[in-house]
């Protein structure tokens, strides 16, 4: 790093530390740009892949209203992916390259979406827990130092609370139903609870990107802090509708003013990230198939636009 670069870097760090915003054409360190491209595109990919487990239930929703709600929710996820790709592009990357990285398996997305959605109650659990965890992660990002990302997150968060409520409402309704329906809800909570806690990422001591991102105001709270909030928020919500938390070690700790909870199975977490989750292969195949099947539409649209342009010029 030469003297000018070093000086710019110091100025940048001080500017960001004073809670000011960076906009696309401003000077920024390469590492800042890189980490944002990585985080925002992974976030976008997660929204896109996140449509798959829920999309499977659109055709099997138990009522027309639930179907319309789920359809709107899944459409929102597509929208969130698009806001985020748009934010990533302001950093000088091409959308097509980002999409290629997802399709080739080079880029990561949230590992939660590599779990299967087996029953209708899973749609409840996903909205309630997965979107709940996402909100917990995303609300602080609305104040992130990079303007376009912060603005995209503000839009996302506004829409996300509908997602969480519709999920909880599915669980509520099932818990008012027959024994079999209650069992179905409990089973969904049992399967989604631990993966939802894993969504906050590795424990603070293990997290690779945390400390620099905290300094750059990309990240505001540590993984463990946010995870603790998620536990404290969810426990009373589960109790209220008669669901039992699937954690024998869970208990209120008066001293810390929060719950103590059991050890997360990090082997499972890293195994799913490494590509060995139940649905990793299926998700990527489905994305690739959708992309390939849509190729003629993209080509046709370009051909149509060119033809119309030519007709106008004539």
């Amino acid at each position, binding site marked *: 790093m030469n003297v000018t670069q070093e000086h710019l870097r110091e100025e940048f760090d001080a500017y960001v530390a004073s809670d000011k915003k960076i*906009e696309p*054409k*401003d*000077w920024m360190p390469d590492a800042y740009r890189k980490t944002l491209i990585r985080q925002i595109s992974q976030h976008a990919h997660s929204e896109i892949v996140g449509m798959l487990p829920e999309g499977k239930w659109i055709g099997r929703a138990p009522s027309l209203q639930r179907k319309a709600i789920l359809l*709107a929710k899944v*459409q*929102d996820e597509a*929208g969130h992916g*698009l*806001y985020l790709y*748009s*934010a990533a*592009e*302001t950093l000088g990357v*091409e*959308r*097509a390259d980002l999409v290629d990285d997802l399709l080739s398996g080079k880029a990561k997305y949230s590992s939660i979406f590599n779990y299967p959605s087996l029953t209708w109650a899973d749609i409840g659990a996903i909205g309630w827990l997965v979107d709940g965890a996402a909100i917990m992660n995303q609300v602080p990002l609305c104040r992130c130092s990079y303007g*376009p990302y912060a*603005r*995209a997150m503000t839009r996302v968060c506004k*829409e996300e609370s509908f997602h969480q409520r519709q999920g909880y409402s599915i669980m509520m309704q099932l818990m008012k139903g027959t024994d079999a329906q209650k069992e179905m809800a409990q089973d969904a909570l049992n399967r989604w609870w631990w993966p939802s806690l894993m969504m906050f990422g590795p424990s603070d001591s293990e997290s690779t990107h945390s400390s620099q991102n905290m300094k750059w105001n990309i990240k505001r709270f540590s993984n463990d802090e946010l995870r603790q909030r998620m536990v404290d928020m969810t426990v009373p919500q589960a109790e209220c509708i008669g669901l039992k938390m699937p954690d024998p070690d869970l208990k209120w700790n008066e001293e810390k003013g929060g719950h103590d909870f059991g050890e997360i199975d990090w082997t499972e977490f890293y195994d799913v990230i490494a590509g060995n989750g139940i649905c990793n292969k299926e998700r990527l195949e489905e994305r690739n198939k959708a992309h390939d099947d849509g*190729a003629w539409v*993209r*080509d046709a*649209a*370009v051909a*149509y*636009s060119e033809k*119309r*342009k030519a007709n106008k010029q004539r």
Partner: protein
Amino acid sequence: MSENKSNWPLWEVFVRSRQGLGHKHVGSLHASDAEMAIGNARDVYTRRQEGVSIWVVPAESISASSPSDSEALFDPANDKVYRHPTFFVLPDEVNHM
């Protein structure tokens, strides 16, 4: 690759949230032409009645000032505080002007 040929250009999207307000930049999207860009903008940026009117502009048509010019462009206003009414002190008897 034929893939690159079908990459749709980037459009910047501006939305008027209600009559009486100006269009505001909300983000960008890809579309093959202006008509499709408006259709996509409607789906992506106005799912909850956020707008009553949409502008789409090819991103490459926008000229922007450079952050390195910001001193030259915007600093001269710094020493012209008399452009603000608070520069002029009024006698106590005159409350509003």
